[in-house]
């Protein structure tokens, strides 16, 4: 069974400072990893994904994520945080065996609330 852990319920950072939102995963094979953001009373917006290749993935709105296979981590990062980045962030994983195994679902972490203050 696949699982995702987001160890921090909330991350606080000052505007202009770098931010990191942590994510670790567990899958039986190789993972597909995703980050999504959710603003209040809205659906989830796709930020970025790791499929294969370069361990540093760049996504929307200046976000990037670093895949580390040995640590089974996929942390979300941004060099300079904005107040408008304040939202709920979800990490998700899909097992690469998904289609044939009927398991194309995403398994989500519990979410990390990011608060960026002036």
């Amino acid at each position, binding site marked *: 069974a696949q699982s995702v852990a987001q160890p921090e319920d909330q991350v606080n950072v000052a505007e202009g400072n770098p931010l990191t939102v942590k994510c670790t995963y567990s899958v039986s094979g190789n993972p*597909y990893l*995703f980050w*999504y953001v959710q603003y209040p*009373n*809205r*659906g*989830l*917006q*796709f930020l970025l*994904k790791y*499929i294969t290749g370069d361990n540093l993935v760049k996504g929307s709105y200046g976000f990037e994520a670093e895949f580390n296979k040995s640590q089974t981590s996929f942390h979300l990062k941004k060099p300079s945080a904005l107040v408008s980045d304040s939202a709920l962030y*979800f990490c998700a994983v*899909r097992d*690469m065996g*998904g*289609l044939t195994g*009927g*398991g*194309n*679902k*995403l*398994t*989500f*972490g*519990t*979410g990390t609330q990011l608060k960026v203050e002036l």
Partner: protein
Amino acid sequence: EAGVTQSPTHLIKTRGQQATLRCSPISGHTSVYWYQQALGLGLQFLLWYDEGEERNRGNFPPRFSGRQFPNYSSELNVNALELEDSALYLCASSLLLAASEQYFGPGTRLTVT
């Protein structure tokens, strides 16, 4: 390009009633997924449809069911509503490729009283 749309935005039902939620995927996407986001429980996978067939379902009772129409839109039906069914129901769509990201609609807020 239009995104995933869901209707209604809000739905209020009484315990024991039935609820029907609707979703239209992004044009060209054949896969539709349903997720439940309940307070304190996070995002839980409900159902996956592709080409009109149910491909996978999560750990939910049979009173949660749905279908996908020939135009790839989808319905989620919840029978015999219980108070704990109150949640935000999110629909997502994607291409049928393992590496494809899912795009989410704004959700339907279901309240059971």
